[in-house]
């Protein structure tokens, strides 16, 4: 299996959200960050958010500046963008999540794990089910989210590509 060779590709940076419809593929790289992919099967529409930190205080200046940076503000923002751009309600969305590795071994806080927990909690609060996840480990990830079928190809560095 290989990554998708397509022209219609969107790249996601840190604290970034991209939403689109088929035939787009949305890609990113992850270290301790978490990528949450939301997909609406019928509309072949989806979005990816690249979360860097677990929490921001609600209505804080940080959260206002970059909602996509913090799990608790990023996931509501991604849902909001799916609604604004495509008119899709949260009930139609299913989630997959990736990343959250512990790359820097000397770092005492496992930020990847905290990001994962906070992302799961944020999805639980809005009632979006998580269909698949590959998280943790000591290496980075490359993920590619295909909006044609909602499948995500994910490769942890040094491993083979898997499809979720």
């Amino acid at each position, binding site marked *: 299996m290989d990554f998708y060779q397509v022209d219609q590709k969107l790249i996601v940076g*840190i604290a970034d959200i991209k939403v689109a419809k088929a035939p787009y593929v949305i*890609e990113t790289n992850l270290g301790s*960050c978490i990528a949450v992919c939301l997909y609406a099967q019928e509309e072949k529409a989806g979005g990816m958010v690249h979360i860097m930190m677990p929490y921001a205080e609600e209505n804080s200046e940080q959260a206002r500046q*970059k909602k996509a940076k913090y799990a608790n503000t990023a996931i509501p923002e991604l849902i909001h963008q799916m609604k604004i751009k495509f008119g899709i309600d949260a009930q139609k969305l299913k989630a997959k999540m990736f990343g959250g590795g512990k790359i*820097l071994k000397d770092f005492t806080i496992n930020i990847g794990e905290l990001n994962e927990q906070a992302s799961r909690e944020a999805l639980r609060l809005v009632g979006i089910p998580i269909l698949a996840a590959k998280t943790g480990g000591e290496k*980075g990830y*490359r993920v590619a989210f295909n909006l044609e079928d909602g499948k995500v190809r994910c490769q942890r*560095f040094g491993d083979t590509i898997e499809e979720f």
Partner: protein
Amino acid sequence: MLNEPRINKAIKMVAKLSIDKGSQVFSKLIKTGARIDMENAFLGDLTTVTEDINRQNTSVVGAIINLVGDANFKFLFYVQIEDSMILADLMLKREVGTTKEFDIYASSAVQEVGNILASAISGVFASDFSINLKPTPPVVINDFVGSLFQEFLLSSVGEKNEILIIESCFHIVRNNIHAHMFLLPLGDSEKVLSYIANTM
């Protein structure tokens, strides 16, 4: 404050001196002509900068070093994995192509080049601006470039959304190695850059 013209001038000055010094020690280390060019010294948005890095999609080996003391900076040096093997051959005075797999020598070639370049930069701060910095032992990471760069930013960006990036690219003439070097001032280092700007 970081986007003031005088701070910008200080950044360019530090970058130029660091790169000149870096070129000298790097050429000496690998016993062949190397040129380091400054690609960029700019204040960028966290998302835009990392989107560009993620687009590259290569596998790299990098050394992350903290420069601590009168100011605090974070330093990153990385090359593509194949180039780390060439660096190892050059440093061990072997014929280029001898190292065929990524091994401890290729990994420690990057570790050591990072160490020597970071020390050269701290030397520039000490000799030209009387600012003492001490490099910490390098942390070597072999990963996707986007993943490595995220970890480089992680502990330094914190609540900030704008990052100051000083990026340079290395050209080793005969072997066509492309290496990258980034310097990231942390929190109070902006004051140091302001001080440098005032001394110029």
